[in-house]
Structure formats: C-alpha cells, structure tokens
C-alpha cells in the first residue's frame, strides 16, 4: 500500500464531496432532522395530557390526591367518569390519554400499604406512557404518605414499556446505517458510470488503496454525524450518557466501518447508481425493523433473530444501549464489538476481491 496514492484518493473524495452541495448538506441535515423528528418521542417533559378521573372513594384524602395530580400540570381533567369502565371507553376512543381510578377502598388500601391508585395509560403513544410513568413516580401529597409503590400503572396497547431514551443511542446507529451504506454504495458505481474508473484501473493504483481511500473520508463524516446526534440528544433532549464518551465513539466507529465496507461491497456489484441505492434500501429496512430499534429483539421469531444477527445495526444497538444507558464499557461487551470488527474485515475483503482492475 502506497500512502501517497491512498492520500491522493482521500483528498479527491473530500474535494468532490465538498462540491456536491446536496450531499454535503445531507451529512448535517439527515441527523439533525431525524433527531428532531424522533425528539417528540423522547421529550420526557410532556404536559397537558387529556385525562379523566374516576374517584370512587369520595374522601378528603382521595380528593387531595386528585388535586395533587392535577397540580403537576402533566394531566388536565377533560371528562368526568364514574367507573373504570367509563375510563376504558374514553381511552379506547382516544378522548383521553390517561385515566385515573381511585377505588372505593382507597383509605383502607393506603393503610394496608397496597396499591391505592390505578393509572390507565394509552400506551400506543410512547411519550404519553412515559409521562404517566413519571406521574406515578412522584410523591403525590405533602405528607408523603403515598409512596410510589402505591400507584400502579397499567399500560395498554404496548406490552413492552420502552424507555424513550432508548431512541437516541439507537438512532445514532439508524442514521449511520442510512447514510454510510449509501455513501460508499454509490462510490465505485458513480466512477464507473462517469467513466473515471476505466482511467483509474489503468494506473498503478492498487485495489486496496482504492477501497481504503474511499472509506477513510466517510469515517470522519460518520463521526461528525454521530457528534451531531449526540450533542442534540444531550443538549435538547437531555439524554443521559452513563458510559464513557470514548466507548460511545469506539462503538460508533465500529458500526461506521462495518456499514462502509458493506456499502463498498454493494458498489462492486451494482451496475448503476440506481441499483446501488435500491440495494442499500433493501438492507436498510430490515436493519431498522429487526435490529431491536423498533421492536424488542426477544419477541421476534427465531428466523427474524437469525437475520438480525447478521446485520451490523443489531450488534451496535446492543453495544450502544449498554454503553449509554447501562454505563457499560466497550470491553464489557467485547463479543459484540468483535462481531462488528469481523464483519468489517469480511465485507472489506470481499469488496477488494470482487473489485477487478479488469473490464471483463
């Protein structure tokens, strides 16, 4: 490998990229827009949820609890209800998002330290679910006589209560999968279509120099995108990062390289840029659906799980949630990291092997 030739390719790619204004704008635009869009789902500070309260106890204590809940501003009483059934109907029809049931034996349950208040939640909306859970966690009256355990939350329509903060660590991966594969997928095909490739392959440039030279600039771009998503996540949506930043970037780097080499492999196969794009989207959809970003991995059928194991995003999802949310380090989850590394090496080798400096 000749470093001067490698560098020449990197510089060329960066210059071309800088002049391609649309692509350059996309590098910043995609992560920003995506994050802001998903931001509605991760906004924990939901206020003014439509609610109905069925106070069946009618005691001063129960009225105090209701007043406390309304005072938080998280819920606004929209309807009056008598029974849990009324609440269920209103919930089903979408007239309210939260229903609160205070059973007739409220005082006795309180005294016996049993669940005394039931919050019914429209779980089909994640932000509502989170807001309601937040509601349930707070001490409800001044005397602190009602401990969190005494309010039970029943979530409907979404059996797995996913934390909204899960979205950002995963979203980093989705955005990188979306952009990185596409960038390199068109990288070689574009030069073939424009006629540059026939010239390049009659020069002493080696296959490895060409492939690595095309990947390197995009690693930097991937890290820029990662930074945008993480910064917005932390500054705008207060997503916690419990693990170390270095580990987050390490994991991201692994995903970037895996995606870039996958894109490069597509590029050696595709006959046109359009084909390359179709192949990228063919990979993108299962990545988003099966990686655990949208649906819990554990609930998927075995076949889907097997497919998911082959996708880099699945492994990144586990890694990054581990690092950002559970405070794990890259070393704690070395198996996942190793899989991404092996994936990169295999894809890159295949791409280099498949790329021929001949036209036949």
């Amino acid at each position: 490998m000749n470093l001067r030739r490698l560098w020449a390719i990197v510089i060329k790619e960066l210059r071309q990229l800088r002049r391609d204004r649309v692509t350059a704008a996309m590098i910043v635009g995609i992560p920003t827009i995506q994050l802001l869009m998903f931001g509605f789902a991760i906004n924990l500070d939901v206020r003014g949820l439509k609610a109905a309260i069925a106070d069946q106890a009618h005691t001063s204590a129960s009225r105090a609890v209701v007043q406390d809940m309304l005072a938080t501003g998280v819920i606004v009483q929209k309807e009056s209800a008598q029974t849990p059934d009324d609440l269920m109907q209103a919930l089903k029809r979408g007239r309210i998002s939260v229903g609160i049931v205070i059973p007739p034996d409220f005082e006795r349950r309180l005294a016996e330290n049993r669940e005394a208040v039931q919050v019914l939640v429209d779980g089909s909306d994640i932000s509502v679910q989170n807001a309601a859970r937040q509601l349930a966690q707070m001490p409800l009256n001044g005397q602190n006589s009602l401990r969190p355990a005494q309010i039970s939350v029943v979530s409907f329509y979404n059996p797995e209560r996913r934390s909204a903060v899960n979205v950002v660590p995963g979203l980093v991966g989705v955005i990188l999968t979306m952009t990185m594969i596409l960038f390199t997928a068109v990288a070689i095909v574009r030069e073939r279509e424009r006629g540059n490739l026939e010239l390049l392959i009659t020069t002493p440039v080696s296959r490895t120099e060409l492939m690595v030279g095309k990947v390197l600039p995009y690693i930097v771009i991937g890290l820029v995108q990662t930074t945008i998503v993480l910064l917005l996540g932390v500054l705008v949506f207060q997503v916690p990062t419990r693990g170390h930043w270095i580990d987050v970037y390490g994991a991201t780097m692994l995903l970037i390289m895996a995606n870039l080499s996958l894109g490069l492999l597509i590029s050696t196969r595709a006959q046109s840029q359009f084909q390359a794009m179709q192949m990228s989207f063919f990979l993108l959809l299962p990545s988003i659906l099966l990686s655990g970003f949208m649906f819990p991995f554990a609930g998927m059928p075995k076949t889907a799980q097997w497919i998911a194991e082959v996708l880099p995003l699945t492994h990144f999802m586990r890694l990054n949630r581990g690092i950002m949310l559970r405070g794990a380090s890259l070393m704690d989850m070395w198996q996942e990291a190793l899989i991404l590394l092996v994936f990169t090496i295999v894809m890159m080798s295949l791409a280099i092997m498949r790329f021929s400096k001949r036209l036949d």
Partner: protein
Amino acid sequence: MGDNAIVARGMTRRFGDLVAVNNVDLTVPKACVYGFLGPNGSGKSTTIRMLCGLLTPTSGNIEVLGLRIPEQAEQLKRNIGYMTQRFSLFEDLTVRENLEFLAAIQGVPRIEQKKRIETLLQEYHLADRDKQMAGTLSGGQKQRLALAGAVIHKPELLLLDEPTSAVDPESRRDFWEKLFDLADAGTTILVSTHYMDEAERCHRLAILDSGILVADGEPVKMAAALAGRTFKVETSQPRKAQAALLKEASVVSVAQIGNELRVLVAEGDSVPGHLNQVLRAAGLEAKLEAATPNLEDVFVAATHRSHLEHA
C-alpha cells in the same frame, strides 16, 4: 522485441458468440505514431483494452514494452498513458486538482510534481484555466487536459482510444501536433480513429474491419500500392453512371464526390478501356481519367477484400 513497443500474435477476443477481435497480428515500432483505422464496432477499443491489460484476450500472445500481457499488466501500468474515448477525468475537480491527483497516483516524484504540472499547464494551454472545473471546459480543452494527464508521468507508451471524436478540426490539428512532439521525444503512440485525415498522418497504420486486421503499413505506401486502380469520371449524369459502373464485377466501389465519380477497380483489370465501354453502353457521355489513390481508396479496397473473403 528490441525496437518494437508492441508485438501481438493471434490476438483474439470473444464476447459470447461475437468475435470482437479476430486473430490480429500487430507490430508497433518504438517512437512511432501508429494508427488504428476502422469504423465503429470494428474492434479498435477492444484491441487497445487488451493491449493495456484491461481485457483478457480469449487467445493469442501479447507483449507490450517487453512485458507479457495480461500476466504482467500491473507492471505495465507504470509505463503507459491511456486516454479513453469518453472524458474520464473528474469533472468536479479543477484542472489543477485533476493533474495533482494523477501525479500522485502515477508516482511523479513529489519534488518534481509542482514543476511538472506548471510545464503541462503551459504546454497544453491550460495555464489560465487551472482553477476551472474540468466539467465546464470545452471539448478541445477537456481533450488537452486528458492528454496532459495521460503523459504526466512521461510514459513510454500512449494508448489513445478515439481521442478526437468530440472536438473541432482546429483542436484536432493542435492535438496531432502534440502527438508528433511526444513521438519525437521517444514516446510510442497507438491511436485509434475513424477520420481519414488523421489516419493519413500516422507513421504506420492498421485497418481494422469487423475485428479483422485487413491491411497495415505506411499510409503512403499503402496508397501507392493501389496505383492504376483508381479513376475519376466526369459526367453530367453521375447517379446513372454510378449505377451502370456498379453492375460491373471488376468495380469495387463508386463514390460520388460533388459532380465527379471516384471509381476503384479490382486488381489486374484491363482498364480504362473497359470502363469506357461500360459507360458508352449505358448511353452516357463521360470523361474518364486516372486518379492518385488516397487513403480512402486503401480503406475501401481493404474492407472490400475482407468482405469477399467472408462471403
């Protein structure tokens, strides 16, 4: 090998059922401008691609600059410059950036790079456009840039695949001047074309037709070999005269040029008395006289023969 840059024997390339290049023998001397003349689809590009190792020949032996092709193609790539039919530099890089890229890729020594690029920009009249995007250059400028890029590492052999197909006559003439400068400095140049005037300028020429090399040699000698076989016919009814002449088996071709007809006859025919008879029999007043054979006649004679042999 010795004085030859390219020696190919029995070079053949098939694409499925199509034989694109059929058993071509080729010898290109060093420091020579060697032309490939042939219509589109005659196998010119395929031959050039095989010579630089881009395509693997189906059969045959190729030796270029003393290297066995395709086995030693990677070594060869350090010593050749290649210009494709289509502009193949980067349209979204500037003139200078393109040359910088090629200098690095071709391994022009770093200390010489700047000077070399300045020299090329001057020589190829691109100095005032060095910051312009290559994609916005005119046809002639693009072609000069492509040639400058192809010679940046001073290759021993230049392979040019229809380099002038997209430029005006003025630019074509300039371009050919450059080629002779390069050949003078010792570069071997293989250039394909479908223009007769360009083919005429070559030191040596090979005529390709449907993948077969039908004639080769020095253009002047090739034309001279046709002496006595070409005629001019002046007549008031050229279309009718053409029809009458074409019925004769000995007439290879009749082309109308203005109000004249240019006639090429087969070898060893008893002309011009015979042709005069034909014209008179058709009731035409015509003046027949011998003409100096040119390259077009060579081309027609060569491709005609190959078609007869095929039939």
